[in-house]
């Protein structure tokens, strides 16, 4: 079999060492090896980028490159070309670290046997080829798995829909009367439908987590509302198991900066788990307070009177597909994805999650979420002004509907578009678009805090209105958009006032304006 000539790139600045290497190929079949010798790293990089090299023999001490850096640069220029480093006797440790950087092998100068070199090269090439192939297969497999999971989840929903439809048709007596026993069995069917449905959602959510497609919409929101929602939603499940489910929320718990749908999702997973692992006549409690360790965070805590988690497992339970191995746990536990999803969701919102437990004494899960701070948000607008005494203008953008009612879908869609557009209208350092501040009845309100006076505010509302008007995608159907602005007198900074106090004062004034706007809309819409 006639082989293609092996293209070897030798990067070596020492002429004597280069000659030695060249000598070693002399005994090879003529035409089977083509050796290119370069003495500078920069030349080597250019040569590698042109392609065609099968393997690199790399000296790690070059005039324009030294040590591990040479390996990194060679690897970056041609990621699939194997590199063998040439090193002196006293540098074996360095050579070993070069292998961690991606070098396939190392050879110690002066210890290379004539016949061994070509063989080492061929082995290195073969190893590299196999590794590249394995990597490609892995990438393919991950992608295949994601597509497969996504496809399967969708396909599972259709039959599940029919099961749900007909079970509820029977339950609602649309097909005739049922006796109590039949009704009880239907409840079991529907409970399982729900479980299957949430498993399908978990599967899809995990695919999104891994593809980095998790969408989180941070806003000023109430954690205690999310707790009430969760407790109401799961009260039935708790009662069915004879478990008391209660919440204990600190008075005047501050708003958090988080995604309300995601907080509910996190709490539902934690409380649902707590109910699952707590025996009859036990209790599950959701507790919320300002963190005693860091006053910038709220801690949400779920505790149960279940069997607890052994201390060495409190970290592992957040791993993907982790499932309790105890065989005496009744029945099914789900897919082992819930806590993994929780951890991702909490961390993406700037919080932390951990578990505390002593076997036999129940488990406690703690979640922290950052407290919403207007002072922190508007700081960029105020800090940019040297004097610290700036006029502040609040620009208000309102989206309403001619019909008085904006569907949730239309609302979500519109808000997204408007937010994007507003963000582009801002002076990035001087104006701050606040996250969603509250529900304001049937309208949707956006607030921009700008360090400018009345004239600046007027100009800005005009600019925004023009932009919004020219945007076909937003100006559609029944949607009405209006803008207005309100200016504050200069917020003066007292001589001895710290920047924190000053920001807090300014934030209070801005909050006052925001609250005012929201409540006037509520009155207008009779809510």
């Amino acid at each position: 079999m006639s082989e293609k000539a092996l293209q070897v790139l030798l990067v070596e600045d020492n002429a004597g060492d280069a000659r030695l290497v060249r000598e070693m190929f002399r005994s090879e079949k003529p035409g089977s090896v083509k050796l290119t010798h370069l003495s500078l790293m920069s030349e080597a990089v250019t040569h590698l980028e042109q392609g065609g090299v099968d393997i690199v023999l790399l000296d790690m001490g070059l005039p324009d490159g030294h040590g591990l850096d040479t390996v990194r640069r060679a690897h970056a220029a041609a990621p699939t070309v194997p590199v063998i480093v040439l090193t002196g006797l006293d540098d074996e440790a360095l050579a070993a670290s070069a292998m961690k950087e991606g070098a396939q092998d190392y050879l110690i100068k002066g210890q290379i046997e004539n016949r061994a070199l070509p063989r080492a090269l061929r082995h290195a090439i073969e190893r590299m080829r196999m590794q590249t192939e394995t990597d490609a297969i892995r990438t393919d497999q991950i992608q295949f798995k994601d597509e497969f999971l996504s496809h399967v989840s969708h396909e599972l929903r259709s039959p599940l829909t029919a099961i749900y439809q007909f079970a509820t048709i029977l339950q609602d007596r649309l097909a005739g009367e049922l006796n109590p026993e039949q009704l009880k069995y239907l409840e079991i069917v529907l409970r399982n439908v729900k479980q299957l449905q949430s498993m399908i959602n978990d599967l899809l959510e995990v695919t999104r987590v891994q593809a980095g497609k998790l969408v989180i919409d941070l806003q000023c929101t109430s954690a205690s509302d999310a707790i009430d929602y969760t407790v109401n939603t799961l009260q039935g499940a708790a009662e069915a198991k004879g478990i008391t489910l209660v919440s204990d929320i600190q008075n005047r718990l501050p708003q958090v900066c988080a995604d309300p749908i995601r907080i509910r999702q996190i709490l539902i997973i934690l409380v649902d788990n707590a109910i699952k692992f707590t025996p009859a006549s036990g209790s599950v409690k959701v507790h919320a307070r300002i963190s005693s360790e860091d006053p910038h965070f709220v801690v949400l805590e779920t505790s149960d009177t279940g069997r607890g988690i052994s201390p060495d497992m409190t970290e592992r339970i957040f791993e993907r597909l982790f499932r309790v191995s105890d065989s005496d746990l009744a029945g099914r536990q789900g897919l082992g994805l819930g806590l993994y999803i929780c951890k991702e969701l909490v961390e993406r919102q700037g919080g932390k999650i951990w578990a505390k437990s002593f076997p036999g004494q129940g488990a406690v899960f703690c979640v922290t979420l950052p407290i919403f701070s207007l002072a922190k948000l508007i700081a960029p607008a105020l800090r940019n002004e040297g004097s610290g005494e700036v006029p502040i203008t609040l620009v208000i953008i309102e989206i309403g509907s001619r019909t008085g009612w904006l569907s949730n879908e239309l609302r979500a869609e519109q808000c997204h578009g408007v937010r994007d557009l507003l963000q582009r209208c801002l002076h990035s350092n001087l104006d701050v678009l606040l996250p969603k501040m509250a529900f304001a009845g049937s309208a949707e309100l956006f607030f921009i805090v700008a360090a400018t006076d009345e004239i600046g505010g007027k100009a800005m509302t005009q600019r925004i209105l023009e932009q919004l008007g020219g945007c076909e995608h937003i100006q559609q159907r029944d949607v009405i958009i209006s803008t207005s602005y309100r200016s504050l007198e200069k917020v003066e900074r007292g001589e001895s006032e710290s920047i924190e106090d000053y920001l807090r004062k300014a934030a209070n004034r801005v909050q006052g304006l925001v609250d005012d706007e929201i409540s006037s809309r509520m009155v207008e819409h009779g809510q």
Partner: protein
Amino acid sequence: MGNKKILIVDDDPDVRHGMHIRLKANHYDTFFAADAVSSVTEARKQEPDLIILDLGLPAGDGFVVMERLKKVPSLALIPIIVVSARDARANRARAIKAGAMAFLQKPVDNAELLAVIRRALGEPAQPTEPVVHDLGPI
């Protein structure tokens, strides 16, 4: 006044059947189509008050159906509710943009489906109906 007419477009016969029983019990008249082509034909023939539309259909998908309906003046204004097994996150915005009033994820809770239908038809909500809190996909 007669019952409101709803066209159900879904390629799964069981889902169509189940939907029919549920809607009939709530005093709606139902008509059916199982693919993209016949859904437009059926809409022309029946001129329904509302269309419940699946996205995954033979001979085109729900988006194609919406596009075709928009081109027929007598059908362009019929409210459409998309009910699909497809991922809400990836399809909700697209469906709304294509002209749907709402996107509901299968399996849809009965009370939620009926509430959205009533809103789309401009009918008053039922006193026992839950407020639909859905602000987007979970």
